[in-house]
């Protein structure tokens, strides 16, 4: 296996893929958003219970490749307890990591996705869950897509 591929499918990603955290519908959710990648058929729904501006609980559901499933799973562990502003800031960091491969100073589980940057076609897999989560936060019921030309 090549170094690039090992870097893409890091242990933490495989682990989240095999044993996804916070998977399934959240019965108490007061926000939900759905995302898809039209070209590949990946789908992801994110359920949030917002308590004021804070994410009290969240879960995800859907189907897709290891990268998209692991990313959504890991995301749910990172966003719990965060405000909208903090969530957006985390997404910015994550987006930087998957597009540049540079990881920020602080040690973060998100850094596991640094290997994505050598596989540009997979960036949209890694960001699918995040797009859905941000849309859910905005109370936007329109499906998220990671294939907008601006992406």
């Amino acid at each position, binding site marked *: *296996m*090549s170094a690039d*591929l090992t870097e*893409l*499918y890091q242990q933490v990603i*495989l682990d989240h*893929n095999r044993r996804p955290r916070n998977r399934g519908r959240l019965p108490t959710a007061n926000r939900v958003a759905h995302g898809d990648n039209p*070209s*590949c*058929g*990946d*789908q992801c729904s994110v359920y949030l219970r917002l308590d004021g501006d804070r994410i009290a609980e969240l879960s995800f559901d859907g*189907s*897709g*490749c*290891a*990268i998209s*499933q692991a990313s959504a799973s890991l995301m749910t562990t990172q966003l719990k307890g965060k405000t909208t502003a903090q969530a957006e800031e985390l997404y910015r960091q994550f987006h930087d990591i998957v597009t540049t491969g540079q990881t920020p100073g602080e040690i973060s589980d998100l850094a596991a996705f640094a290997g994505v940057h050598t*596989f540009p076609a*997979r960036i949209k*897999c890694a960001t699918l869950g995040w797009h859905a989560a941000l849309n859910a936060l905005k109370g936007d019921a329109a499906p998220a897509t990671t294939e907008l030309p601006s992406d």
Partner: protein
Amino acid sequence: MPTWPDVRADFPILHQRVHGHPLVYLDSGATAQKPRAVIAALVRYYEQDNSNVHRGLHALSMRATDAYEAARARVAQFLHAAEPAEVVFTRGTTDSLNLVARGLAADLRPGDVILTTEMEHHSNLVPWQQAAQASGATLRYVPVLGANAEGGLDLAALDQLLTPQVKVFAFTHLSNTLGLLNPAADLCRRARAVGAVTVVDAAQSVGHGPLDVQALGCDFLAFSGHKMCGPTGIGVLYGRRARLDRLPPDATGGGMVASVDYEGARWKPAPERFEAGTPPIAGAIGLAAACDYLDALGREAIARHDQDLAQLAYERLAPLPGIRLLGPATGRRGLVCFAFADVHAHDVVTFADEDGLALRGGHHCNQPLMRKLGLASTTRASFYVYNTAAEIDVLVASLQRTLKFFRG
């Protein structure tokens, strides 16, 4: 398995390494590679004869017109059409199907039925949804049988569905997901019996075996050049003369008008009526070169080669633990689609790429069928004249490594 000793030498693109491995191109269902002869035909055209067609009297223009019309005649011969005028050059299968769907929609009324099948590519499905919406006609689907669609079309259901209300029956000749060849001549015969116009999506079949539109008995037939060793951006709508003559024009503009004044326009007869604007001239010439190439290999031999490789692949893949194979176990053509419950198609394709393999993962523009089968995406290996049995070994070995990695 028929083998042509020099076929691979004809395709410059195959002789490269991907991630250090020899390229194994198993994605011809998406687009076929181009033999040197086709590329050379394009170069020759641009270096010697390039000019606009139809409206010119100078030497280059006459040469370009002659070459363009000779390409039409060559394609007509490839399809065994009754005459060159039955061949309309389009941009591709999708373009051809939109042209005919929009044209036929003009004659449809509420109460009429458009019949298609559950196994259609989006390009032979969404245009009919639009035609139904525009005309008020009802769209119905011939069901597909079996948990893995291995039973093909439900021909008993077809008998029920083919009522006199059916005005159009559009179906694929060869499914790009199931590798299954529909009994097109029989389907056309049954449709004709109720007076329905037949539209055959031949995108996957036309370059992969013998095809005779008169023997099929279809009214329209659509395909793309790029899936049969031809250039991108060229396709064909075949229309039986009597039907084509009745179809209204689609795009309008230069080249398709008999006369224009500020108040309105009159149309030229078919096929020009359907070719508004400067046509894809080089594309048509390249497509004719592809016809020459495939006929030289032999269409029967190509079909046999395709079938043998697909069968071999099916048999070699079937023992992989947890694999789910779509379509029939025997008699398949040119491709194999499969899925694992625990390893997603995109991961399979990414791992295969590391081994130099080009596979396709996704819904293959068959989303409704995938959903019906409870799948979001599958991996497809598709074969053509340049593929070999040894490449199937590479495929199987790669899949085994991938499964091991994900399953530990």
